[in-house]
């Protein structure tokens, strides 16, 4: 394998592992705001117990996100130094903005969210919860802006800097609001809300099956279902606008998503299929002309196909096709699961239908998978470019770093992350099995312990 492949493998592995956690933090963050808001509004202790329980789960996902997130910031420099020199002027400012505007906000108020229950008033605590949630979304804003600029560069010019070409900002807001920022950010946030909502749905359903903490489980399930209803329908719109944006800005990616080869024919929309990249044929079931209809409102308009791109500018087609279609399928399943659950709730049967609750327990995996493979579609579909149309991935590598370096770090990442994942699942499982505290008496047991020592 080449250094490039090792570097890409390491980045893919570390970002995939990292991306398990931030969507959970963003999604749980907004749900915590609702839960604690309900406590403030109703004064019902049950909401306080519920909030404290979910804060503990949130703390765990947040810690995992922080621990694995700092890796990402380093990796641009360690493995992709040439890329960093090329984009630093632009990409770097977005990362710095993430630090100044998101991470400080998030980590500062997190202290109060986790440890401040007895140190600040209820309203201040609620304010801290809101700020943590806002901070987590702000970090999504800046990192998705940075990534979107790689997909659809704007507000820049290319400058010869001492014999090396690099991109420099000409219009900051043009860079921030590049053609794909808004649609990709909203789609990313929608996915994160779903990840958080379905975690709460899953755990609540589990308690209802086990007939434990039923009051909290019912209330939590309702809140999470409403978030899921909003988010899953929101994804329909943001998904559509993302795909329409890709059609305009990254035609090769769109063509790969539907494995559309022939530029003279209208685009079909596959329900599922398998792409034979050598024969340039798809075996599967499609709605003829539907892609053209969705994008141009007319099923007969031809769509630019892969045949119009130079061979070395075509992304891996089948992988892009499969990840894209699976993501869409999961998106529709999540809408279905949410609507059926809400129907059952309306008919008063939700909390007692054990079979359905069991389905909801496992549904927690769906948004996780969709979030991961949605990003695979976006990033693999961008290949062979690291900055679309400007810099190829193979030209972005660090010059001083060898395959051996990367293999060394990749092996360690694999071992450490495997261990971390086991610890994470073990503690998550333990916390869920332990459940919310029956009563919330605030013990200062340091005093007690000291007396018994």
């Amino acid at each position, binding site marked *: 394998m080449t250094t490039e492949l090792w570097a890409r493998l390491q980045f893919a592995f570390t970002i995939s592992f990292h991306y398990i956690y931030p969507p959970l933090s963003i999604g749980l963050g907004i749900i915590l705001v609702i839960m604690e808001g309900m406590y403030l509004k109703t004064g019902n202790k049950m909401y306080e117990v519920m909030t404290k329980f979910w804060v503990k789960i949130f703390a765990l996902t947040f810690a995992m996100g922080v*621990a694995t997130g700092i890796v990402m910031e380093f990796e641009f420099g360690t493995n992709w130094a040439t890329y960093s020199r090329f984009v630093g002027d632009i990409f770097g400012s977005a990362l710095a903005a993430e630090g100044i505007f998101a991470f400080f906000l998030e980590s*500062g108020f997190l202290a109060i969210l986790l440890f401040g229950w007895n140190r600040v008033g209820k309203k201040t605590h609620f304010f801290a919860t809101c700020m943590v949630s806002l901070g987590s979304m702000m970090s999504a804003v800046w990192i998705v802006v940075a990534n979107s600029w790689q997909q659809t560069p704007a507000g820049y010019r290319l400058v010869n800097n001492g014999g090396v070409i690099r991109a420099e900002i000409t219009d900051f807001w043009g860079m921030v609001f590049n053609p794909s920022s808004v649609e990709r950010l909203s789609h990313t946030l929608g996915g994160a809300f779903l990840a958080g909502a379905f975690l709460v749905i899953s755990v609540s359903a589990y308690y209802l099956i086990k007939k434990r903490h039923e009051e909290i489980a019912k209330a939590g399930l309702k809140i999470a279902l409403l978030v899921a209803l909003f988010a899953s329908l929101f994804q329909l719109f943001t998904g559509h606008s993302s795909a329409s944006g890709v059609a305009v800005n990254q035609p090769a990616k769109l063509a790969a998503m539907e494995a559309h080869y022939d530029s003279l024919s209208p685009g079909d929309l596959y329900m599922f299929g398998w792409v034979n990249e050598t024969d340039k044929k798809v075996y599967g079931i499609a709605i003829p002309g539907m892609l053209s209809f969705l994008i141009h409102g007319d099923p007969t308009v031809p769509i630019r196909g892969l045949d119009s791109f130079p061979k070395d500018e075509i992304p891996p087609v089948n992988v892009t096709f499969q990840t894209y279609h699976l993501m869409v399928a999961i998106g529709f399943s999540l809408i279905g699961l949410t609507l059926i659950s809400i129907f059952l709730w309306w008919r008063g049967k939700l909390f007692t239908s054990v079979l359905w609750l069991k389905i909801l327990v496992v549904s927690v995996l769906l948004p996780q998978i969709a979030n991961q493979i949605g990003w695979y579609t976006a990033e693999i579909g961008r290949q062979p470019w690291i900055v679309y149309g400007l810099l190829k991935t193979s030209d972005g590598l660090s*010059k001083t770093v060898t395959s051996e370096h990367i293999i060394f770090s990749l092996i360690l990442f694999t071992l450490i992350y495997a261990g971390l994942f086991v610890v994470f699942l073990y503690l998550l499982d333990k916390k869920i099995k332990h459940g919310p505290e029956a009563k919330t008496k605030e013990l200062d047991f340091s005093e007690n312990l000291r007396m018994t020592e």
Partner: protein
Amino acid sequence: MEFSFDINTIWFVLIGDLLAGYGILDGFDLGVGSLHLLTKSDLDRRILLNSIGPVWDGNEVWLVTGGGALFAAFPDVYATAFSGFYIPFMLLLFMLIFRAISIEVRSKEEGKRWRAFWDRAFSIASMAIAMLIGVTIGNIIQGVPIGKDKELYITVFEMLNPYALLVGMTTLAAFMMHGSIYLAMKTDGELQKQVRGWINNSTIFFVICYATATMATLIYIPHMVAPFRAHPEFFLLAFLNMMAIANIPRETQRGKDFFAFLSSSAAILSLMALFAVGLFPNFLVSSISPEYNLTIYNAASSETTLEIMLTMAAFGIPFVIAYTVSIYWVFRGKVKLDNMSY
């Protein structure tokens, strides 16, 4: 060295401030971590852990933001240093991961072996982070083989030279001293007595390392000394640094732990300032030829970007300072454990 206060200089100072902020704030976290295994009882270890519990994560953000700002303002420095120091930076990452996870999970399980394992992970990771930071600083002070192509080729063995290891030890000692002073503010009773002993020993340890490192710098690294010869007014920094260090035992003896903490913070800040004056206007000094030094000019982003970022910093930093101060205010006083503690 002609000194003009342009935007590149401002960014050199700002990034220095972010990293000094990291050294002062996460410095005591790392110091507490390094001292962690010196306590034996589970309760004492929990008090140590919870003394930094609410703040360590925010403190680490100074490093993340410093890194982001370096990427944005001086992309060539970021790219050259991060790819050139590949192995030590990867180890630094692994240790930062271990530290974060140890703090989070250590007390979530009752088992003795579980806690013993994470206690060790926490402490070893904290010491390793301090050492790795110090060794990197040591290499930057000495100068590193950067070629015409702005690339840095260095092996791990070259990095682990005696001078760099000495700076590594000095950093570890400084953080232990700083961490033990922080702990004196956060503990009481028997534990606090024990902590006061640590302050004494770690201060002696630090002074020995620092004096040796200073001698080595004066003898072996003339380019770090030249700026002070050209601008004797900067010698004042060295004097302030000495006063700050000398003030630590004085305040500790009077029981004024907060003032001792301010003194050790000032000592770290002035150390960073001495380091920055010695380097300026370079970020990375090439040991091959001074022509290849990465300076605040040849490694910088465009002026537009530096200006945009300055606007962002002007908006953001007052807020950052406001949160930081209020969080420390909320969690002031001795550590109290409750059912949400680590």
